[in-house]
């Protein structure tokens, strides 16, 4: 039913290919005006690339992305869905978590719209604006911000219906989960810690992070909520927090729960003793930051936090929504890959994801 309406919307969007100017407000309250639908888009924020591909339903209109966007595609399921994505240039910024644009490389791509972070400093924005590019500034941290990304992407691709469907899905799952977790008493919410970095230094997600939002939503309690976004802490602080569940980021590719279990200094931490250390899944994108599959993150986490309370059919949820987002289906092996059974198989309660 839903997909029928969606197909109709697609068809109508295509028939208005040459359209009126599109105008929208970005997340820094700037008005951005395009001559028509964006045909050549560059995304600098890392999760924005796969989200754009998801909204647009293909890679044709994405002409540039961040290097770390590509590492989430390469070798993972999105590469299978959109093999052409690997050919999209990703040399448009500095190395690592750098968002400084390489303006000349960018200009050579002749983009008609560039997505850039709006919550960092303006030095990463001004060169783009000064080069005469259309720039849409987006922010991270709250779920509402992510919805706005979808809205903007829907508008500029002429696919507002798809974007709206993706937002509606978020609403549905959020309401579903909120109803289920709202009643969980403070004392029954597992103390949860998300490691943004673990291998080189210990950096955790604080109260202003997006991670904090979904830990809450899934019925947990972020032990680091007193801190800001992502903050360096000492090992003793972690012991003092004594998290019951530890979540490992998807950015440090080699990081696995074994690294945490093998650390003698963390041997007394509840999550280690009860083997509740989990690598964040990686589907169409890393599930830890906000992304087009966030509702799946929330559902997965609610099961990780409350294996006795929740038993969503994750395989089914993944399959149905991949059908809707990407128009693709996945098999049981794909699901195991997405949920990182390679690293999580031995973790406590993880077998609840196995029989789906």
């Amino acid at each position: 039913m839903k997909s029928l309406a969606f197909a109709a919307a697609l068809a109508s969007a295509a028939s208005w290919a040459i359209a009126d100017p599109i105008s929208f407000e970005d997340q820094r309250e700037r008005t951005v005006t395009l001559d028509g639908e964006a045909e050549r888009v560059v995304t600098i924020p890392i999760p924005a690339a796969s989200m754009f591909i998801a909204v647009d339903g293909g890679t044709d209109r994405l002409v540039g992305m961040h290097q770390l966007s590509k590492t989430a595609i390469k070798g993972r399921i999105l590469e299978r869905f959109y093999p052409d994505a690997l050919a999209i240039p990703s040399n448009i910024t500095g190395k690592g978590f750098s968002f400084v644009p390489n303006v000349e490389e960018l200009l050579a791509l002749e983009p008609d719209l560039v997505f850039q972070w709006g919550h960092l400093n303006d030095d990463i924005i001004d060169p783009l604006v000064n080069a005469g590019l259309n720039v849409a500034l987006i922010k991270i941290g709250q779920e509402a911000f992510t919805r706005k990304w979808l809205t903007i992407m829907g508008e500029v691709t002429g696919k507002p219906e798809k974007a709206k469907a993706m937002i509606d899905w978020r609403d549905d799952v959020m309401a579903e989960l909120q109803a289920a977790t709202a009643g969980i008493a403070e004392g029954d919410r597992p103390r949860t810690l998300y490691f943004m970095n673990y291998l080189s230094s210990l950096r955790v997600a604080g109260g202003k992070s997006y991670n904090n939002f979904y830990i809450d939503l899934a019925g947990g309690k972020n032990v680091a909520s007193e801190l800001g976004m992502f903050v360096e802490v000492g090992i003793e602080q972690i012991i003092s927090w004594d998290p019951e569940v530890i979540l490992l980021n998807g950015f440090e590719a080699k990081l696995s729960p074994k690294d945490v279990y093998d650390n003698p200094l963390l041997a007394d931490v509840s999550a280690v003793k009860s083997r509740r250390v989990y690598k964040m899944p990686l589907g169409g994108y890393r599930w830890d930051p906000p992304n087009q599959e966030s509702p799946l993150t929330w559902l997965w986490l609610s099961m990780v936090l409350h294996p006795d309370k929740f038993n969503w059919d994750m395989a089914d949820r993944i399959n149905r929504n991949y059908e809707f987002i990407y128009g693709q289906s996945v098999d049981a092996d794909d699901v195991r890959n997405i949920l990182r059974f390679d690293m999580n198989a031995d973790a406590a309660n993880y077998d609840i994801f196995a029989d789906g």
Partner: protein
Amino acid sequence: MSLVDETSTPAAKRRLGLWTTLLSLLAASVLFSLGIGRFGVSVSNVVSILLGNVLPLEPTWQPVEERVVELIRMPRILIAGLAGAGLAVAGAALQGVFRNPLVGPQIIGVSSGAAFGGAFAILVSESQVLLIGFAFGFGMLAMLVVYGISRQQGRASILMLVLAGIVTSAFFSALVSITKFVADPDDKLPAIVFWLMGSFASASYDKALLIGLPVALGSLVVYLMRFQINVLSLGDEEAQSLGLKVERTRWIVLIAVALISAAVVAAAGIVGWVGLVIPHFARMLTGPDHKVLIPAAALIGAIYLIHVDNVARASIAAEIPVGIITALLGAPVFAYLLRRAANKGWSSE
């Protein structure tokens, strides 16, 4: 006139008081630091845990408390103390050898050379031994380059030395940037960045041993050379006319300093200002004689960095980089000391 020795003079008695004070302060600092941290362990339990190492005590404490005190705090305090002592000894030796209050391991290029060596080691391997080896190798190399640039007609003027140090440091900083640029952004780059920032957060006994051996060896050499450093601090010409083998002496001291600096850099990244400020402060207490100055600087440096690290690890939930605190404290204190010294005619050269 006394034909005995120097132990009965009032100065020697004052010195005995100084040693007693500094050693007690160090012991108190270590005990105090074992008792503070983000994880609550009661003072009585800290004491019991420590005594439990030598006495057959029935544990009244949680195993986790023992682990926190003995596996997390103790090695961290050890490393901070060793680093502080090492940097202060290195700084005192350099200031003596170059007769210049502005000289520290950072200024003559050792630190930046060692930083590059360490960053490069992280890039190519995961071995701690390799890290310290590369840090030492490139620290020495940087110092050789500085010395090579500054030597003219067989001798190195202090001004040239400092200028050459600035040039060499800039060059090795660029090499560090290149290393960062080519590093894998997923794992190597954050490791290098974090290491360069300087932190004792990843302390362990293995690491303490790794830094402890070179620091102890280097400091011992410096201490054995205390009289020669005194003579060298008169200036090259005077030292030579007094019969000192100037070049050889300086090289022995410089190698020892490079060894100490490399070990500290390898264990904790670049921790600035300690090697500059602490020897000054120690000199105000002890006078310039390196026989007294070097051990005093070592003790004061250890006490200082232990407390700096206490602030870094225990004041708030987040880790504060140690280098930030030492710079915040060090720069103004150094400016004050410099002005004081200038008024006394210290800066005559």
